């Protein structure tokens, strides 16, 4: 099975050096979304004002497979 790497980018960058064997890129996409959701559930402040939060999946060659990007936008004061 191919190995996929799940990196986290928010105000810090966390590189996944271990990776995970999964059946396909489609499964890696699903796992990335669930992983991102669980990280945000644990700490909603991972989304900093104006800055997004990303789980970036790469393959064994380091090529991008999928990026899950989550951001929040507050209303302008007075609007």
């Amino acid at each position, binding site marked *: 099975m191919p190995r996929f790497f*799940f990196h986290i980018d928010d105000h810090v960058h*966390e590189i*996944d050096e*271990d990776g*995970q064997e999964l059946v396909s890129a489609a499964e890696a996409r699903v*796992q*990335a979304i*669930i*992983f991102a959701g*669980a*990280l945000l*559930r*644990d*700490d909603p402040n991972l989304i900093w004002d104006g800055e997004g939060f990303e789980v970036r999946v790469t393959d064994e060659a380091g090529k991008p497979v999928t990026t899950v990007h989550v951001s929040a936008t507050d209303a302008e004061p007075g609007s």
Partner: protein
Amino acid sequence: MAALPSPLALLVRKLSRHVPLEPEDRAALLALPATLRTLDPSTYLLREGDPPQYCAVLASGFAYRQKLTGEGARQIVSLHIPGEALDLQSLYLDVADHNIQTLTRAEVALVPRAAMRDLVQTRPAIAHAVMVEILVEGSISREWTLNIGRRDAQTRLAHLLCEVAVRLDAQGLSGGEGYELPMTQEQLGDALGLTAVHVNRTLKALEAQGLIVRNRRHVGIPQWTPLRDVGDFTSRYLHFGRQPS
């Protein structure tokens, strides 16, 4: 290799920790008819929907209970260590509501369910101890619900590592300073409601903080207090003390 204590002797040890057992109670437990089996990892001891035939006692190895969603997603709902009876909760329920599988290669003693029921009906102290054991399993289950429902990934995993350490220790199997945890990251994920990716990240985070030391499947615990604090763990729900009648 040292001879393993008989599985029924382990069961006596476990039950007598809940309730004082008279020599006659101990002798009756040790005299239960039991068939010894060595099982490969992932062998089913009981399948959901089947009538339970045996009360299995684990002599060595780990086992777990699991349930599946309609779509086949698996949740591991409890873990079992040597000396534990796997099916006391099915003693009075005629159909299994979950699956029981070995996690590792395991030696089990299969006691016919009817023999166990007869013993419980004739010896009040054993009935009391079995009742406490079933209630403690319920308590562990409630703690797991809290753990999975309300604790973050790091706390959740640290809590599980603490629970296994303390249970192994209480059974007289080394645990407090570290132990062999024969679970893949996927299996840990199935027990904790996390993806394997998340389990891997969380194990590394615990290790980076010096809370655990990993060597393959061995989990070393250099200092108990910091891991216990991170895991929000107290052993109250395991009810280790004797339960006076």
